[in-house]
């Protein structure tokens, strides 16, 4: 059983392209654009944070805050994704200003933030030890 030479050459070249090309990029980590590296959703969700807003009351009581309710943004499922997502600690702190206004003078609002970082998982960014209602 002897395959035609043209077929052998064409098949071997194509096989090398589809098999060795991606492996070469995976192993060497070199960026050769002609070869596609099969990395999917590697950075998906890495620019998103989880936040916990809380109100610190006199006497040490800590009450979790729901920013949607406090700012009357409407039911969760109707809020646009852009509003639901907080992408970094600075944006999280930015949400505190209208919340402080809503709670009135002497409010003490804090936010604990952890953000996605691709392969390193969730990373704590702020621990909620700063009163965001006090202008610095």
């Amino acid at each position, binding site marked *: 059983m002897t395959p035609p030479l043209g077929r052998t050459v064409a*098949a071997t070249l194509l096989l090398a392209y589809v098999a060795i090309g991606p492996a070469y990029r995976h192993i060497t980590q070199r960026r050769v654009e002609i070869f*596609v590296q099969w990395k999917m959703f*590697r950075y998906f969700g890495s620019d998103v944070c989880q936040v916990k807003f809380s109100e610190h009351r006199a006497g040490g009581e800590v009450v979790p805050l729901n920013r949607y309710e406090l700012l009357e943004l409407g039911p*969760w499922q109707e809020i646009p994704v852009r509003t639901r*997502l*907080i992408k970094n600690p600075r944006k999280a702190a930015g949400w505190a200003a209208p919340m402080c206004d809503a709670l009135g003078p002497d409010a003490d609002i804090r936010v604990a933030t952890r953000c996605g970082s691709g392969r390193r*998982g969730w990373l704590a960014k702020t621990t909620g030890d700063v009163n965001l209602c006090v202008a610095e």
Partner: protein
Amino acid sequence: MNPLRWLWRLYVEQVLCFEGSTRPVSLLRIAIALLMWSRYAGHTAHPALAHTPDIIALNVLFWVSTTAMLLGFQSRWAAGLAGVAGLAQFYWQGLHLGVEALHVHHVYTLGITAALLAATPCGGSFSVDRWLALRRAESRGEAAPPEWGPLWGQRIIAVMVCVMYLGTAYEKSYWHYLNGNAMEMAYTTLYLGSDVPMPPVAKALTAASSGVVWALEWLLPITLWFRRFRWVSIGLGVLMHAGMYILIPVATFSLTMCGLYLMFLDPDEVHRHIDRALS
């Protein structure tokens, strides 16, 4: 036996000299043409969005080649040109011109599959080519030509699928994927938003499903080749891709992968099943 000689013999027998019914590759030809339309229609390949000569030329090539590919007219040429158009959308528009929506794996997968189909007798069945061949044979008083041909291209597509799974499995081999954190980030972005923590049960399910996907992506490139495990593997693969299709925005990728499983089936068995279904 010398292992290199054994490997070469396997390559010759199972790839270079592999022959069979043209039906699976023809079915994939139709599926890929429809998926390419589905991916690009109303998007970058829409005539209204083409403003420069290179994109207009690319769009003309795309529509003419994919139409011929779908109908099966000059099928190998059509598939090859559709592959060129698909890969140009990935490399030229996506990578060079910076259209992010086109520099994604599912665009590449469609383009490269179409291009590789040109190395198969993908017009041998369910095509205008087949109809013309039958008409020619009839007018000459000859027997109908068999739906049969060399299928080394089918094997190369199957190898590509395996490499794809191995690459994605390798990339998922880190702790924060396996413990569900990576998918929790995705679901936070897509569904929950920043304020709503994932419930513990959902978190456990996310970790478990991440582990299952990771394990399957390592296993499928092996089990898909063995007749004994093939149908179970395809069933689990389809379930996995269906889950991805529903939960995360993978566009045409899931359906493309399901179509690509045709490349692992015994072509003659597919032929017989279709005959039986149509009789």
